[in-house]
């Protein structure tokens, strides 16, 4: 099971966190501090895994962004590496050659996408196409809602003038 997903930049800035096991806010801060200290210091040719307090953290670096997932000691690390890549590919398809800035400004979008890939710490959908379809359906709804909302707010704005 995946216990949490953390995205940190090379400077140690947090870009996204998702916790599937209960951690208090204090623990979260501590975890992130510890992990970023450990992972960011690692050289490029070393393993993409770190053993950490009886768990394992699998990380993968894309440009200046580290994707880290914490898993149980008996999980398959290579599989998790590919789940990370799966996530990135979907992000890439969604944003169109995704970059760190996309995630910085649209972190909530990234959350929605992650929710379609992982649920309760398990891989939910191994098909990229299915995920893309679901996200598109939600966005379509959002667009229509937005149009309605803006037309309503226009009307209100005009009425209150």
């Amino acid at each position, binding site marked *: 099971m995946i216990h949490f997903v953390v995205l940190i930049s090379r400077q140690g800035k947090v870009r996204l966190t998702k916790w599937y096991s209960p951690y208090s*806010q204090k623990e979260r801060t501590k975890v992130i501090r510890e992990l970023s200290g450990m992972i960011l210091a690692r050289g490029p040719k070393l393993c993409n895994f770190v053993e950490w307090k009886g768990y394992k953290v699998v990380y993968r670096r894309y440009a200046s962004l580290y994707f880290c997932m914490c898993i149980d000691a008996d999980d398959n690390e290579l599989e998790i590496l590919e789940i990370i890549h799966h996530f990135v590919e979907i992000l890439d398809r969604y944003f169109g050659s995704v970059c760190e800035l996309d995630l*910085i400004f649209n972190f909530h979008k990234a959350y929605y996408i992650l929710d379609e890939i992982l649920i309760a710490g398990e*891989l939910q*959908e191994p098909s990229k196409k299915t995920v893309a379809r679901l996200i598109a359906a939600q966005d379509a709804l959002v667009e229509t809602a*937005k149009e309605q909302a803006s037309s309503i707010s226009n009307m209100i704005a005009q009425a209150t003038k």
Partner: protein
Amino acid sequence: MGSQGGWGQSKEFLDLVKSIGEARSKAEEDRIILREIDTLKRRIAEPDVPRRKMKEYLIRLVYVEMLGHDASFGYIHAVKMTHDDSLLLKRTGYLAVTLFLNEDHDLIILIVNTIQKDLRSDNYLIVCAALTAVCKLINEETIPAVLPQVVELLGHSKEAVRKKAVLALHRFYQRAPNSVSHLISNFRKRLCDNDPGVMGATLCPLFDLIKEDINSYKDLVVSFVSILKQVAERRLPKTYDYHQMPAPFIQIKLLKILALLGSGDKQASGHMYTILGDIFRKSEPSSNIGNAVLYECICCVSSIFPNPKLLEAAVEATSRFLKSDSHNLKYMGIDALGRLIKINPDIAEEHQLAVIDCLEDPDDTLKRKTFELLYKMTKSSNVEVIVDRMIDYMRSINDNHYKTEIASRCVELAEQFAPSNQWFIQTMNKVFEHAGDLVNVRVAHNLMRLIAEGFGEDDEGADSQLRSSAVDSYLCILGEPKLPSVFLQVICWVLGEYGTTDGKYSASYIIGKLCDVAEAHSTDDTVKAYTISAIMKICAFEIAVGRKVELLPECQSLIDELSASHSTDLQQRAYELQALLGLDSQAVESVMPSDASCEDIEIDKNLSFLDSFVNQSMEKGARPYIPENERSGMFNIGNFRSQYQHEASSHSLRFEAYELPKPSPPPTIPQVVLPLPTTDLVPVPEQTYPRETHHAPNLPSATDASSVDFGVKLRLEGVQRKWGRPTYSSPSASSSSSTQKTANGATHLDGRTVSSQTRDNFYDSRKQQAEVSAEKQKLAASLFGASTAKSEKRQLPTHKTPKGVPTTAEKPAVKGAISSSEPPKEKTVPSSPPPDLLDLGEPTPASTPSIDPFKQLEGLLGPTSAPSAIDHSSAAGPKTPDLMALYTDTPPAAVSSGSLNPELADIYTVNKNSHGTTNVAAMNKGQNRQDSLQKDATARQVGVTPTENNPSLFRDLLG
């Protein structure tokens, strides 16, 4: 799509994100966020915030929280937003609550209603959003509220909904297995879902269920195999392909399940062989995902009933991993190797150099994994090298979590495989020195017991040798500045017990050292208690042999200080010491007999020595003691009694709060009738009128003062019980372990032969480390060992339970399984655990190895017979000759090279000493050498056997 703007966020928010991005330090970031929190608090509290504005605030709150700050002031607004009708806002609300709230948060109860409503929605997107929230937020208490609806959704027309419903049920199962136990058939049904996504999701809960109860799912083996077959044959839609692999994530999940189902089940495993072979063949070692599947295949093969062909494929894949340049693959290879050697320990041999490379790799992760592998393959022949390595590594790290782990592993290995007591003590010293505060206290007690019990009663010479070597090493170590408290306790105890036994050190010298310890650790009461007790023992021993004890001034001041200590324990010890000093030698001898830590202490539970005193006072008119049961039987106080009896039975302090004293009963009834205010002293629950009247007749029967006495006595009773029974405590944790001895006696012969042989290796490994050249090769050789050592180890089980016939019958059966892959035939053969097969795989004649160690022992004892040992070992393995050549310079030569480093020299001399004794023993006892060896081994087994053994390790190693 554009990356910035265009998403309806305000400029304010974009500025915030930008300024965070530009922040130079964490402090600056924190300042910005704190300002943002202030702003948000103000804005959110404004009346009539437009809903769309609120949505943005929530996202900003998520941002704040993500950066590690507390946004709890806005949680309620997130909850409110989930109630919104518009999907856009609702989704934001759900996103925010799932990120904010843990499953035990108070606000969850407010969301349950909304979730219930949304699960019934016509819009499947709303249902999906609600199900996502269900997975995160619903806890054990609220499961029943949504369970029926989630179950209903298993039949929803949209596959996305079905999938999420399955995973939600899985989550429920994880939280509270009982809540969904009646729904398990639903998971089986969903396995046949038309949508591969739903089927794949169903594998998650099934995996957990099967892990709990394998046997109920054996019927699914065929289905799983056929699903895996279809997946591997690319029958799934193309969209499930991942990097040209057909649905690898589903394959991996299936392989995990098959590994569980096939474990130790020959028939079930039989179904899997074909498909596993196919996957091996079709695997793509070029891609990462291909390797992930391969690795899972290896795991599966090593878990199910072994099949030689598949094992071969697994070994081949493993060696490819190990030879790869990628650290990731090496890591996986080491892990896979650890799994495969459980089936066949020989597999490790051909990869020894790769393993050594990994062990010396700068990558910490890889190193740790390799240590894990070494830990799994430790046996008596390589324990020294492995534990030495582990300790070296332990010194170099400062990750406490891992340090604890590796320290406990060292201790475990040392306890199980120690070739000699000296080595064991040396090793424990090192572990304590470097990770003392992290190891379990029990380990320290074990160590003390080992020193106290030594080799056993028959061989006092070796015992005292062991003790004096321990004393020597401890006196050396005491010079070091920072020692962990636990270790100091051991040292003090040993010094007190055996510091002066061999006459090498004077009492005043040891006492001086102990005083230094107490002074240096003035804040640690436990250590001080140990030191003062140790001083007391030394003084007692001195007095007992008739020598005069003159306390050093620093010792006297220590006693003075402790007599005035805040700790009553220390005070008592100090006073005891002072009292002891005033006694004559005979009294002291009986109070503190020398070397009596192993003796049982008899306790007179009836306190019969007080009888005369009791009789005397009875004659003087004292009332006789009334046993508790009779005493409380005098008055019938229902609740009161049972409550206190319960307390008496537990004999411990009460941690829960005391009951509130009941308000005194209505004044009209009791106080008037009975002049009994004293009962109120005790909190008596349920004071009722009838009971009190019951008291009345009893009272006059007691003596005059009873009305007062009664209350007081009651009270005292409670107090006394609260303190509980005084427990006997002594600094030594030793207890007689004679039963253990007999229990372990069975294996003693083997234990001895193994250890005698490993002493050779001990020399070898020591030397290797001194020699820099060709170091790796030698390390490999000493780790993986000459095959003699291995065969010896494997011989252990066959020795004990000769099972030649059943195992030979097994082999052809397995072969049949491979060739025909038809299970029915094998049904006649009783399935047995994998290792048996392997025992047979390389049948070792039991007679030869049992002779060899003795030959080698002869080699140890005298240089004359050394050649025979060499002959033997050179025949054994290709790697050993040079090692053995090293060995041929007999002990004297080894000593001469002792100048290499002090530690080394130390060990050599220690070993030389022990040679001396064994030699003498052998001379004296002549033909009975074997007997003495047996005794030796028995004692060693007892001393070194862990009280709480590590069953899995034992099983793995002994098969």
